[in-house]
């Protein structure tokens, strides 16, 4: 098994707010992330695909294909967007790093045609990231 990882960066704004909570609870639980006008991050996304190399090409998956897939599914959807208001898959969810990584996983997993999506790693900042794995996948 060989693993291939491609990294991209996108910038987006978001706000943590649960309408079921009172304003005081929202502020206590989410702190600064509850600022009514939102805030943003430069997210770094690392997508890892594992598989056997194709003997004819020496590749697990054509990097171009992965690049185009990440561009179409992630960049076009999330780059320079407000995640609460402009990304349908996140509607009604709090756009935490966990939820965004899970949405990216679900968007990519059915579209990887060669190899298998092994890990989605989403960095929200240089000191925080979330990893998403398939069930039964060793970390």
């Amino acid at each position, binding site marked *: 098994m060989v693993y291939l990882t491609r990294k991209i960066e996108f910038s987006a704004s978001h706000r*943590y707010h*649960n309408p*079921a*909570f009172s304003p005081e609870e929202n502020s206590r*639980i*989410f*702190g600064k992330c509850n600022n009514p006008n939102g805030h943003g991050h430069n997210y770094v996304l690392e997508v890892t695909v594992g598989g056997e190399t194709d003997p004819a090409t020496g590749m697990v998956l054509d990097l171009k294909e992965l690049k185009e897939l990440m561009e179409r599914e992630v960049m076009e959807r999330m780059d320079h967007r407000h995640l609460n208001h402009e990304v349908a898959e996140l509607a009604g*969810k*709090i*756009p*935490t*790093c*966990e*939820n965004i*990584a*899970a949405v990216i*996983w*679900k968007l990519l997993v059915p579209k990887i045609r060669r190899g298998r999506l092994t890990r989605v790693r989403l960095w929200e900042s*240089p*000191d*925080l*990231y*979330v*990893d*998403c*794995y*398939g*069930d039964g*996948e060793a*970390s």
Partner: protein
Amino acid sequence: MRLELTRRYAFNAAHRLHSPHLSDAENRRIYGKCNNPYGHGHNYVAEVTVTGPLDPATGMIAHLTELDHFVEREVIEPFDHKNLNEDLPVFRERVPTTENLCMEIFDRLRRFSGARLVRIRLEETGRNSFEYAGDLEERTP
């Protein structure tokens, strides 16, 4: 689908690698520069990885402020700007290699109640890192 959250924490500390079970000559041969009697220091970075179900109300595995406070109390306060050999009782007996430090941090953080600790990855410098995920038999699936 399984999610893990990782947070990076920095701290700086001094240590000296010297085993009381070895002769001075052996200590010098095995630990080299790290056996210098006056010690030396590193900028450590601990990557703390936790997992668990997402809280539907917050969309989070663990509340970051709770994790930050716990790590601050259990690791940063006792270790940052300290001499590991002199200031930490556990390293009076045990050589404060980064392997041992990594396991010590794991043992301190496994008591975090907000999520399940998966592993500690400890960078001693930008070029060396160590990982510990507990003993296999202790792991829950």
